[in-house]
């Protein structure tokens, strides 16, 4: 046995001695139990949270039942709590916001990755990130002062003329309303979509691009047929995060949607979302109203959770296979 083998062996013995083992075992156990404790604590907080909201809304569910989901009139003054208009406004404003934000966001992410020189890339990326740092109330103000006049005098009359006043561009061009809320939401969720999909695309191996070009693909074929599909799971994640934010956005929407809970007739309609209604009515709510608002909160939570679960499933399905 030569010198180096001997010293190796002795080192091994040292770390395997009963004392060292015991100490390491204890600290491991301590670590595991601390983590378990935190996990239990968080689960408890979450359960408590869900329980209290469901509990608070319980009278509304027993009293109104499915009307909370399907009733077409929301009129707390007369204790009429039909939640459908609020649900529709929430879902529609989010979907239309995605309709604007997804193509623009993906396009921006692609341009950032494949077109702009590095210096401009950094500048543009940090400007997009700045958008994310603006508080919602500022977006609301911007919507009120800048977008309302522009919508009512330019965009909406133009869309109305173009479509011949047909749905979904029917009705008076009021400025404020579902369409404006969607526009503001689109700008608000854009940074999320751009930042995440840009990172996902940047993380793709460079040789995917060259592999496709070497087969005779055009630049646009590379983007459409190779880059976007390869980044699909991450992009879906980005979109669902954006959707989650849009569904729950409160202040900015409240300021620009018109605050009128009625069944939406077109994109020009004024409306109210689940979140904006909870925020506006809570301060002066009667006990019956408080329970109904709790029910709206439950509906909103379920919607958001559903979007998340859906996105997770898609991400798992595509992600597991692309790893």
């Amino acid at each position, binding site marked *: 046995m030569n010198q180096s083998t001997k010293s190796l062996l002795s080192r091994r013995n040292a770390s395997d001695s009963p004392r060292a083992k015991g100490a390491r075992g204890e600290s491991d156990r301590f670590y595991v139990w601390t983590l378990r404790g935190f996990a239990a604590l968080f689960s408890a907080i979450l359960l408590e949270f869900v329980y209290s909201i469901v509990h608070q809304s319980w009278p509304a569910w027993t009293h109104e039942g499915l009307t909370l989901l399907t009733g077409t009139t929301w009129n707390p003054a007369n204790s009429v709590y039909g939640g459908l208009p609020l649900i529709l406004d929430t879902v529609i404003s989010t979907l239309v916001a995605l309709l604007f934000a997804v193509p623009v966001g993906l396009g921006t992410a692609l341009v950032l990755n494949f077109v702009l*020189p590095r210096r401009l890339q950094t500048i543009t990326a940090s400007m997009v990130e700045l958008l994310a740092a603006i508080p919602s109330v500022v977006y609301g103000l911007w919507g009120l002062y800048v977008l309302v006049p522009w919508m009512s005098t330019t965009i909406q009359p133009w869309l109305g003329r173009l479509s011949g006043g047909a749905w979904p561009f029917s009705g008076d061009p009021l400025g404020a309303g579902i369409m404006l809320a969607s526009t503001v939401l689109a700008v608000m969720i854009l940074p999320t979509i751009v930042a995440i999909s840009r990172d996902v695309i940047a993380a793709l*191996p460079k*040789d*995917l*691009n*060259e*592999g*496709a*070009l*070497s*087969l*005779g*693909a*055009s630049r646009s*074929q590379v983007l459409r*047929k*190779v880059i976007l*599909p*390869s980044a*699909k799971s991450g992009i879906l994640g980005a979109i669902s995060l954006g959707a989650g934010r849009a569904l729950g956005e409160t202040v900015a929407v409240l300021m620009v949607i018109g605050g009128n809970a009625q069944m939406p007739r077109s994109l020009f309609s004024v409306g109210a979302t689940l979140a904006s209604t909870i925020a506006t009515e809570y301060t002066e709510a009667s006990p019956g109203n408080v329970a109904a608002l709790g029910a709206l909160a439950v509906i909103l939570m379920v919607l958001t959770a559903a979007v998340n679960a859906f996105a997770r499933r898609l991400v798992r399905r*595509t992600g597991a*296979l*692309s*790893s």
Partner: protein
Amino acid sequence: MNDSLDAAIQDGAVVGEFVTDPLLQLRKVNVSFSGRVAVRDVSFDVAPNKITALIGPSGSGKTTILRSLNRLHDLTKGAKVEGDLLLGGVDIYKGGIATMLLRSRIGMVFQRPNPFPTLSIYDNVVSGLRFNGIRKKSLLDEAAESALISAALWDSVSSRMKAHASTLSGGEQQRLCIARALAVEPEILLMDEPTSSLDPVSTQRIEELMTELKNRVTMIIVTHNMQQAARVSDNCAFLLMAEDRAGELIEFAPTSKIFHDPSDPRTVDYVNGRFG
């Protein structure tokens, strides 16, 4: 050495004793990146249905030469390719060949297997045909089968064509990339150290494959592995970095000559493992 080669060509004679009717000709090819010369005055011929190997130490410009042949340097800002690169007598830069068409005539296999990870095996194989506008299912099926057979992959994947490419082993992925390139029916296949990320068994299968493919496609292979060059290639180009780190062609000859009777003392040193 380059001068005598050029002189021989100007005389209309056969270059050396081996290249008649070259498929690809490089004449005084220079490649530079933002003004820094990476490849200087490289001239050699590529014989049809033969395997031409580019050997030389790291940084001697082998990859750079390979990528100039399918115009991949077009993507790199500041990259400049000069000289004549003739495919069947037509200059691939100045001769008016559309880049996309050129790339389907000169395919490429990369150092690391790069199948499209989210596409199925089938979609990977036919991707080049789809890029080139072929939609008909029967044509695609036929091409996929024949390309996979050529790449010696058909037996192991024919029952799971819908599986993702990423479920294959590294060696299988590389053969899938070869199949994908072959499906487009290129005249030339460029291979940049195609086995450097593979285990010995996969490496051997790919080497066997290359020999089998010779009657279908002309291959140019970059390799760090002397034995590989000796085993598979017919002709060999040996490159070395000059003082200013630009890659230069030292010797171009049939592989047996390069390995057994090289003309340049630097080639002797290199093939005997004395540097690089």
